[in-house]
């Protein structure tokens, strides 16, 4: 065992970054993912680490196809994100980004629940700083909400893990299944991180509030770790098929009417994860391969889209569709790369999304879920509609908003170029990706049926867009907030708490006043009866004392006789 744990270089590097300044820091930032990548390339399957800690047998590193694939992917993502954020002069963001990437690596290589939990929570905390670093009141609030929900996921994982240890006697993170209550809790914990419906709002709430560079990190890791964890623990769980289908469909409605383009991307992210979740739920070799491959591609194209929007935000300071437009004039290269990302997410043939999403679609049909298949097809059309067309259209084309700027800094462009190139490369030559997948791939994406069907779907979706746009049926971009499930915890609950506390403050003070009053009355009563002037205590006349004595004697005698 001559290699380091996959996450070590990131975490150790993060410790030293604050001490390094200026140009040297950029070199160090680049070196970290590269060195770590070299370390991971050397890892062989079965290079597991074992550790006896507090009488628990831990497996801090477990290397197999699945973890290795995500290991490579996360290095790639980290490298791109680091390059994209090289220009930033904010130690917090650099450190948080590195710790975040490192703990994501730790999570996918974790072979036991304790290790998984540790990195799960480390991810939550470190990623929150990427949101908080935006340093606006909105971002601070959103970051805290984000953290709260991530910790909720963490504690559910902890609770589930503890129950599972009691049920099975082992901490090893293998197939779990939802048959036991512990398994169910873990499932829900993964589900929160995976943005299951009704638990998805942390994503759409927080990611758009992150820093331009932070969002790139965020889009790469958290949900993908969750997808990995589902693929490891719950492949073939039927519920996931339907959950995935819902996840693909409902966000696109919100995406259509959402104004903040990064929030549109956040919704589309849920939509893409839905495909993966669905694939994991199907659970066949093809489906899981497709889900994992799609996760791989999603990191790249969603990263690319996030980066292009980040670049726009960085250069113009705006991100609402209603305030943008016509930027292709001053940012042509960004526009072009954005379109590459859009094509990839929409699964245009020759772009990366096509080679992975179709695997899931085929698997769904093979396993006999036509309804789900229709839903996914609808979502595919929809994703093109809102991510493929809406994002580039409203940002770079549409009505010229009069913004004149320039291309973003070179490091941003470079990062986007790398991501774009990879999207196209995988789209054209998917075999290298297929090699890495956990199961053997016997699937060919490029045949006439697939290509033509996909083109038909996409072109007519686009046709619908142009028709709606030309007839002004298309809803205009409006500055607004769209209520979603978060309404419950951002509005209903706080209002209820406020209402209760508003009602209870007078109640509590009345109560405490009442108690205080009662105590006072009690004190006064006691004083009246036992104070120096009370009947029992004040100096008695001798005659009265004698009377008492006589009375008592009588009482005693009576008592003795009876």
């Amino acid at each position, binding site marked *: 065992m001559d290699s380091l744990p996959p996450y070590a270089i990131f975490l150790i590097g993060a410790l030293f970054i604050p001490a390094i300044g200026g140009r040297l820091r950029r070199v160090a930032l680049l070196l970290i993912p590269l060195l770590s990548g070299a370390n991971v390339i050397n890892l062989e399957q079965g290079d597991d680490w074992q550790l006896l800690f507090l009488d628990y047998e831990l497996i801090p590193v477990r290397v197999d196809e699945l973890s290795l694939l995500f290991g490579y992917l996360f290095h790639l993502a980290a490298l791109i994100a680091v390059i994209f954020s090289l220009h930033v002069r904010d130690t917090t963001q650099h450190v948080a980004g590195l710790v975040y990437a490192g703990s994501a690596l730790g999570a996918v290589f974790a072979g036991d629940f304790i290790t998984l939990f540790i990195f799960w929570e480390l991810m939550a905390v470190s990623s929150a700083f990427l949101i908080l670093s935006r340093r606006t009141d909105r971002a601070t609030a959103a970051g805290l909400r984000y953290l*709260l929900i991530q*910790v909720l996921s963490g504690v559910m994982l902890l609770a589930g893990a503890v129950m599972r240890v009691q049920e099975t006697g082992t901490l090893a993170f293998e197939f779990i299944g939802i048959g036991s209550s512990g398994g169910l809790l873990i499932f829900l914990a993964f589900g929160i991180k995976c943005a299951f419906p009704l638990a998805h709002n942390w994503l759409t709430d927080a990611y758009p509030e992150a820093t331009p560079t932070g969002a790139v990190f965020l889009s790469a890791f958290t949900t993908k770790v969750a997808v990995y964890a589902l693929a490891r623990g719950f492949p073939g769980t039927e519920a996931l098929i339907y959950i995935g289908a819902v996840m693909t469909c409902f966000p696109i409605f919100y995406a259509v009417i959402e104004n903040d383009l990064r929030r549109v991307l956040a919704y589309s992210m849920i939509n893409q994860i839905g495909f993966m979740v669905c694939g994991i739920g199907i659970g066949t070799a093809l489906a899981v391969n497709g889900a994992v491959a799609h996760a791989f591609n999603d990191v790249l194209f969603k990263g690319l889209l996030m980066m292009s929007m980040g670049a726009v935000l960085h250069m113009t300071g705006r991100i609402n569709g209603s305030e943008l437009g016509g930027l292709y004039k001053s940012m042509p290269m960004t526009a072009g790369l954005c379109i590459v990302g859009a094509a990839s997410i929409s699964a245009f043939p020759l772009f990366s999304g096509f080679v992975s999403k179709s695997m899931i679609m085929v698997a769904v049909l093979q396993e006999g879920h036509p309804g789900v298949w229709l839903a996914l097809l609808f979502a595919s059309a929809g994703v093109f509609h809102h991510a493929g067309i809406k994002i580039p259209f409203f940002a770079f084309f549409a009505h010229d908003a009069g913004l004149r700027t320039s291309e973003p800094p070179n490091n941003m462009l470079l990062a986007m170029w790398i991501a774009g190139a990879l999207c196209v490369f995988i789209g054209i030559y998917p075999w290298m990706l297929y090699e890495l997948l956990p199961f053997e791939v016997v699937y060919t994406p490029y045949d006439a049926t697939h290509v033509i069907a996909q083109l038909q779907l996409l072109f007519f979706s686009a046709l619908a867009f142009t028709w709606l746009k030309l007839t002004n049926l298309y809803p205009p971009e409006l500055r607004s907030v769209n209520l979603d499930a978060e309404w419950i915890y951002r509005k209903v609950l706080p209002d209820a708490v406020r209402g209760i506390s508003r009602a209870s403050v007078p109640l509590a003070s009345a109560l405490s006043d009442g108690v205080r009053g009662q105590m006072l009355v009690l004190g006064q009563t006691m004083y009246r009866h036992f104070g120096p002037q009370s009947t029992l205590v004040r100096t008695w006349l001798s005659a009265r004392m004698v009377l008492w004595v006589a009375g008592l004697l009588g009482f005693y005698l009576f008592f003795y006789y009876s």
Partner: protein
Amino acid sequence: MNPDLAVLLAPVIPAIGAVLIGFTGSRPNVREAMTLATGGVLFGVVLSLYPAVAAGSRPAAILFASLPGLPIALEVEPLGMLFGLVASGLWIVTSVYSIGYMRGHHEPNQTRFYVCFAIAISSAMGVAFAANMFTLFVFYEVLTLSTYPLVTHSGTEEAKRAGRLYLGILLGTSIGLQLLAIVWTWSLAGTLDFVPGGILTDVASPLVLGILFALYVFGMGKAALMPFHRWLPAAMVAPTPVSALLHAVAVVKAGVFAILKVAIYIFGLDLLSASGITHWLTYVAAATILIASIVAMTRDNLKARLAYSTISQLSYVVLGALLANAWGVVGGGLQIVMHAFAKITLFFCAGAIMVAAHKTEISEMGGLGRTMPITMFAFLIGSLSIIGLPPMGGMWSKWYLAVGTVEAHQFLLLGVLMASSLFNVAYLLPIPVRAFFGAPPAGEKDARTPAGIREAPMFCLIALSVTALGCVWLFFNPDPFYSLMNQIVAPENAR
């Protein structure tokens, strides 16, 4: 050093220290040196006991014979070792901190402060190493009385009111309930010695045992179990080092420590779990955890919020004892350690903020991270440890407590622990987050324009950094404390 002698010295050294501090009161530098020296020697002595105890031996000493069959005696067992280490170790740090704080804050009556502090530590050592319930009770009362002047240090009307409440609740519960329970135990069992496995097996009906146990649990007023918690927020009028060491470590932990002791060595876990007499009490502890957390959220005064947080966290230990199984006890014991390090850090930070920035209200602390980065970072670490997030030691205690609840099939309690973690996030993390990322309150110069760093006094910073690093260290190295606790629940595992 001969372990038996070391046991004897543990309460004696700080008592001697108190005298020396009193005599050197006119020369502050000598006085503080004396405090630190006493702390160092004490910690050395306590530490020297560790190998023997970890190896399974039980050093003991008799101070003097009191009532027939009931000597004031000391004996070190693993749980006491754990508490003794924590209290004596953190005393040194607190002393360092006190030097910075008391001078920076220009507090009066500093000699009285240091003397009482030393006496309090002396009695905490006595509580930790008590060989029987009677000895524990004696030192417990000394602890109460010696900390009263610390609570009322400022001498204001508010401080006196708080002092009355402090004394009233602590003496009231200990005399009214705990003493009754002790005498009762004596009359049932004929002994009060702490014996592994307990001394009450087969001597009384479950009903009697249930009442007796409740008397003990509520009689330890220092554990701040609701409804006997009010003294703790009130005691926050004390100078911050007092709040830090006493109301996060020595005093409050003496309470929960005593409950654990009673559960393990008076009743015995088997008896407790078999008779099911603790069941309803677990809900009291759970309610305390939740209600105190909710109240903490509504407090804007930092120390008040921390006080309610302490109330909540203490009930974790109580819960651990009430679960009456091995894991609950391990979790409870670890929680004593983990919470001590984390909460003392938080109090140190609160005091540092008071000294350096003259702020007590949380709503005024926006943007403070720019002027006091070290302090606020330590605060963040402490908060994470309280919540139970890695890489902080607090994670391990939460883990074992969770295992304990599952072992006892108390899934509701598991839910309470988890919910409490979320509450902790909600009331602790906004403080450092707004300090680092929020804007300073209106009317203050915007700190985004480069302002000079105005950190707390150096002594304060050293102390709070040490404890914050302690939180991290405990994540990687909880084993010294874990193995102690493990020895209690699985004696065959003594290392």
